[in-house]
C-alpha cells in the first residue's frame, strides 16, 4: 500500500460499509456520508503511515465511531448550516420504520454499548475485531454486547433468559 491508486481502491471498497456504520450511529443519512468521507480524508492525509497498519479498515472505523459519538451535539450547528448553504437539503429518514426504530434504540444505549452493537449488527464484526476497532478488551466488548442485547430485547418487549443474553458474542 502507500500509493494513491491503492488508497482509491481501498476507499471505494470500504466506503459504503463505513457510511452504513456511521448511519447506524448517527441516524442521519447525510451526516453519515459526511463523517465517512471526512474519515477517509484523514486516512488519505496520513496514508503513508496508515497503509502500513495491519488493518487500515479498523482505523477508519475507529475514526468514524469516535466522530459519530459527538455528532449529536455537532449536528445542530454543522448539519443545519450545511443543509442550508448547500442547497437547503432536507434530511429525510430513509429507513423503514422498523429499521429506524431499531437503530434509534441502538443509539439510545450507552456509547460503548451502542458502538459495539453497531459494529456487531451492522458490520457483522467479531468481538475480536470490535475490540481492536474500539481499542478495548474483548471481554469489555462481550459485556457491552450482552448488555446491549438485553436492553434491546427489553425495548422491543422480547424477554430473553439471562444465560442467553450473555452469549451474544461469538
Amino acid at each position, binding site marked *: 500500500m502507500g500509493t*494513491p491508486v491503492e488508497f482509491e481502491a481501498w476507499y471505494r471498497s470500504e466506503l459504503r460499509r463505513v457510511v452504513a456504520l456511521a448511519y447506524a450511529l448517527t441516524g442521519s443519512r447525510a451526516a453519515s456520508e459526511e463523517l465517512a468521507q471526512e474519515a477517509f480524508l484523514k486516512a488519505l492525509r496520513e496514508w503513508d503511515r496508515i497503509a502500513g497498519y495491519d488493518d487500515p479498515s479498523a482505523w477508519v472505523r475507529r475514526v468514524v465511531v469516535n466522530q459519530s459519538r459527538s455528532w449529536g451535539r455537532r449536528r445542530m450547528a454543522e448539519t443545519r448550516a450545511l443543509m*442550508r448553504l448547500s442547497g437547503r437539503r432536507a434530511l429525510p429518514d430513509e429507513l423503514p420504520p422498523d429499521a429506524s426504530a431499531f437503530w434509534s434504540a441502538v443509539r439510545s444505549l450507552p456509547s460503548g454499548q451502542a458502538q459495539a452493537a453497531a459494529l456487531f449488527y451492522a458490520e457483522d464484526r467479531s468481538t475480536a475485531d470490535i475490540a481492536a476497532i474500539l481499542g478495548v478488551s474483548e471481554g469489555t466488548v462481550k459485556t457491552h454486547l450482552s448488555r446491549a442485547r438485553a436492553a434491546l430485547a427489553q425495548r422491543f418487549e*422480547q424477554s430473553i433468559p439471562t444465560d442467553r443474553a450473555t452469549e451474544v458474542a461469538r
Partner: protein
Amino acid sequence: MSVEEMARTASIALYAATEPVRPIDFTARRRGSRQPQLRLAVGLGVVAAVIVGVVVVMANRDDGTRVATTPKEVPRLVLGTVPEGLSPTGAADLPLASSGGIAFDTTLYGDAQTEAWLASDSAAGAGKRLLVLEVSVSGSESITPAEGDTVIVNGQEWVLSSFTDQLSLGAVIDGKNVALTSPGLDRDALVAMAQSVRVVDGAVRVEPSSGLKALARSAMPPSYILTAGRASGTTVGHIAGYQDSGDGNDVVMVSTTVASADDLAVLRADVVAAEPMIVRGHRGWGITQRFDDNAAFNTLVWFESDGVLATVSGTRPITELLSMAESLVVADDATWAELSQPLGVVADGTTVIGSGDLDGNAWRVTYSTSDGLCLEVQEDAQGSSSSCGDASIGTASSTPIGDGTITYRVVPASVGESTTTDCNGDTISAAVTNGDVVPGALVEVYLLNDCREGVDGVPVQATVPLDSGGSQVVTASGSSSGPATTRP
C-alpha cells in the same frame, strides 16, 4: 421477532439506504488543488463558521445602495433589564478583524406582486420570487455539495433539494457556492434559471425569466444566519450576548448593524413568514425559524434608525423578545467595556487558556493582546520555550513543539463541541464550558503528540478575542477519548 432478526432486517435496510453513496475522486482532487485532502474538512469548518457569523468579508457593492456609516453612529444596545435566568456573556464591536474570507451576495428577483408585497406590511402575498445566493470562500476551498437529486444543466451538476417548502438548486461554479432558492417557483422554472447562470467577471449572473426582475441585492448573511442573531457579517455594528448558566441552551442576542432597505427585503423574502409588528415604535418583523429538530429560534428585526438594523433574537418567545426590545438601552463606554472585559486575565495581561503536562513537559496556552496565542513549554532541565502565532478562521496550522505538535484551528464560537482526530484515530473533543454565545471566534488548540506510544493528544479550547475590539475570553476544558495510543 428476536433481536437478531430485527437486527438483520435493520442492517439490510441500512445498506439499502447507502446505495446512492458516491465516492469522491480523490485523485482528481489531488491534481486540482494544493491541499485537496483538506477541502471537505475545511469546507465543513467554513460552513460551521458561517452559521455563527464570524467575520464575513463584505462583497463590494457597485450599486451604491449601502449606507455609509461609521461604527460610532451605530448604538451599542444592551438589555436594560436582563430576564431572570440569563446573564451577560459578552459583547463585541463588528466586524471582527479576523476575516473568514467569506462573501455573501444575494439578489432577489420578484414579480409585480412581490414588489407590492415588499412595500406593504403584509405577511402574505409575496408573489413569485427567486433568491440567488452566492457564497464565495477565499482560496480554493469549497463548501461540500449538498445531497439531493442531481440535475445536469449545461454540463454543470446541480443538486435539487427542498427545505421548508422551498425548492433550491445548488452548485459549485468556479469555486463559488451558488444557490437558487424560491418559495414560488417550481422545479422547471428553477432549472430554467440555472440554464441562464453565467459567471461574468467573477460574479454570478442570472437572466430572470419573464415577469421577474431584480428587486434587491444584499451582502448580508442569509436569513438563517442573520436571524440567529449573528449579524457580524455586516460591515459595522455591535453585538451583545446573554445566556443561561445551566446547559447554555437559553440564549438571547442583541445586535445593531449597518443595513439597507435591500437587506431587509432579502431577509423578508427568504424567511417562511415575517409577521409585521411594532417594535420600540418602529415597523418591525417577528420571525420564527424551526430547525430539523423542531427547535424554534425567534427574531425581532427592525430599523432602529435610518441605516441601522436592530435585532433581538433567541430561544425566548416573541412576546418576551418584544418586552426585551422595549427595555433596550444604549450602553455607555464603561458599560460596554465591562461587557467586553475578558475573563480570567492575569496580572500581566496574559490569559491562561489552559495548562497541563505533555509527556513530562509542563505546558500552558496563553493569550495576550501583544503576542496573540502562545504555547509555552517548560522542558526538563532545559529551560522553557514558547511559540506564538496567529490563527485565522477556517484554517488549521501546526507547529512542532519539542516532541509534540500544537495545532491551531479556528472554529465558530457556538459550535459548542468540536472534535478532531489524532494520529491514531482517537477523537479529541473539546466542549466550551462557557461563552457559547460570545461573539468572538473560537480557537481550538490541540496539542497533538507525534504518535508516541502511550501519549494521547491534549485538547484545549477557548474563545479569544481575535480583534482589537475585544470579545470575551473564557476558559474552557476538553477531553481526550479513546485509549492510550498503542500503534507504532
